[in-house]
């Protein structure tokens, strides 16, 4: 974790950012999964994840962030749209109207019996789009001189 501008020594900021980053990420994932029964969901979860990435961007620089997390955020946006679209489209193969969701109970390893709903896949699409768009905006503005 080397910084170009060696004049500034922000070891406290960087150490704190690394610890807080994981706390924010876990909180955002919690928000994402909470969506169905309590406040939360894909939008606020995605925004919170993007906030964690922005914290890394503030403490380090954009190159470091690109090295640690090599994502193309434009493709992430497109991937999110693909997931949301396919989730909405799957119902038409069962001759149901567009956007009809389905759910079932599954016996998952470790977690036991859980109900899985296709709305979570739609939310995952929203989550990815929100992260992708937020990070694209911030990176584009940050990198233009």
């Amino acid at each position, binding site marked *: 974790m080397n910084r170009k501008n060696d004049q500034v020594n922000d070891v406290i900021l960087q150490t704190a950012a690394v610890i807080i980053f994981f706390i924010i990420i876990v909180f955002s994932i919690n928000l994402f999964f909470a969506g169905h029964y309590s406040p939360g969901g894909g939008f606020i979860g995605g925004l919170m994840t993007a906030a964690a990435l922005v914290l890394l961007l503030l403490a380090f620089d954009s190159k470091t962030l690109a090295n640690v997390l090599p994502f193309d955020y*434009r*493709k992430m*946006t*497109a991937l999110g*749209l*693909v997931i949301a*679209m396919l989730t909405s*489209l799957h*119902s*038409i193969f069962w*001759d*149901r*109207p*567009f*956007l*009809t*969701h389905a759910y079932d109970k599954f016996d998952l390893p470790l977690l036991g019996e859980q109900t899985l709903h296709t709305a979570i896949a739609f939310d995952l699409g929203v989550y990815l789009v929100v992260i992708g768009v937020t990070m694209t905006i911030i990176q584009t503005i940050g990198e233009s001189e």
Partner: protein
Amino acid sequence: MINLPIFPIVIPALAAIFLLFAPKQVRLQRGVALGALLVTFIVTVLLIFTVSQDGIMTVDLGNWPAPFSITLVSDMLSALLVATSTLLVFFIVWFATHYFSDAYESNYVYVAMLFLLVGVNGAFTTGDIFNLFVFFEVFLISSYVLIVLGGKGVQLRESIKYLLVNIIASALFVMAVALIYGTVGTLSLADLAQKIPLVENQSVITVIGVFFVIVFGLKGALVPLHYWLPGSYVVAPTPILAMFGALLTKVGVYSILRTYTLLFDGGSAFMQNFLIILAVLTIVIGMIGAIAYNDVKLIIIYNIMIAVGVILYGIALNTQTSLEGALYYLIHDMLIKAALFMLVGMMIGITKSGQLRDMGGLITRFPLFGWTFFIAALSLAGIPPLSGFFGKLLIVQGGVEEGSLFGPLLILLSSLFVLFSVIKIFLYGFWGEEKRVYDGPLVPYVNRLIVPTFLLVAVAVAYGFGAEAMHPFITQAIEPLVQPEIYIDAVIKE
């Protein structure tokens, strides 16, 4: 197939999403965009025939019953408009593949064009007033991208104006939706149409109706809400301008048509007079603009306003005849305006100037181009066998049947002004001496650019000659507008 009405929205959306993955591969972008649009058009033709056989098709999204879900409603009106806009975008994208440079094309231009079609098709199909707002935003945000793409100084200046006006209009739209939801308590168009007559205080409904006319008037450039239109449209590159001129204002007109006939009918003389005054003002200002300028783009842009005014006059009269005329004219105008913008864009590309005084003698070098323009010009003015005739005839007839003479006479006079303004372009641009050797960057492409333009004009001419064949479809499209019960019964199944 119960999901047929969603495909004109979903197929361009899927293609646009796919194209997001490969912005730099220009050939792939062109191929996928054109292929998707062709498939979409075939689906819309299928949709038209299904609707003509089985009546209005509805899809309750998410399988929830009608007033509680978003309902997509494909009646003949929306099916015809969806087919027209898809066909237009197909020809415009075809034109754009030859018109744009590779560098320009690799900046997501086809993605934005496809998303614009998604928004327009969605706005024509939706049966829910808030969903209408969302689809408005889908095509508006795409149009913001398209108007600024290229980053020239004038584009940046005009896009700020365009953005400001449309953001204010969208905020007003949300307020209008909030008002109608607060008063009636539902957002589904069919449910609203059922419950609005039960509201005790009908004057509140009139206020909301005026509010909606202001919102859609800002989108559709009605006088006095038109001031943003000439400046914003004149800076857009030709294919983008063709899309805007043909589609965007017409969605505003369609929304007035739908809400006025379905929601704010109620026999209110105030609404009718209000719309007629707006229509007359729009025609007059459009006429003045069309003859005042010598800039070819501005002449056609002011012709948009004349057409919007004529269609709105037909809508305001709200009789069987005038609505048929308005719909005939709406489809004709979408086709011919796109063609004319493509044609004047080619003139500017060849002569490197938008001013008539810098042009001349184009017909000796480009005869097919010249005669295509001539036919398009006559068609725009409404010379009998061509497509602009029947719509105006029916609107004028509808006006006379209502006992009004001023409106019909003004529409006939406006035809004269339209003819004068486009023939002026023809005389100065195509006849006479060549002003200098035309060697613009577009000249090598003219033979390729003329193909989609010529085909689009041919479609418009066929639409005029096939008016008799179109008549049953138009009549069917008007039914739910004249008798809203048909629409309500189709959406809300007991």
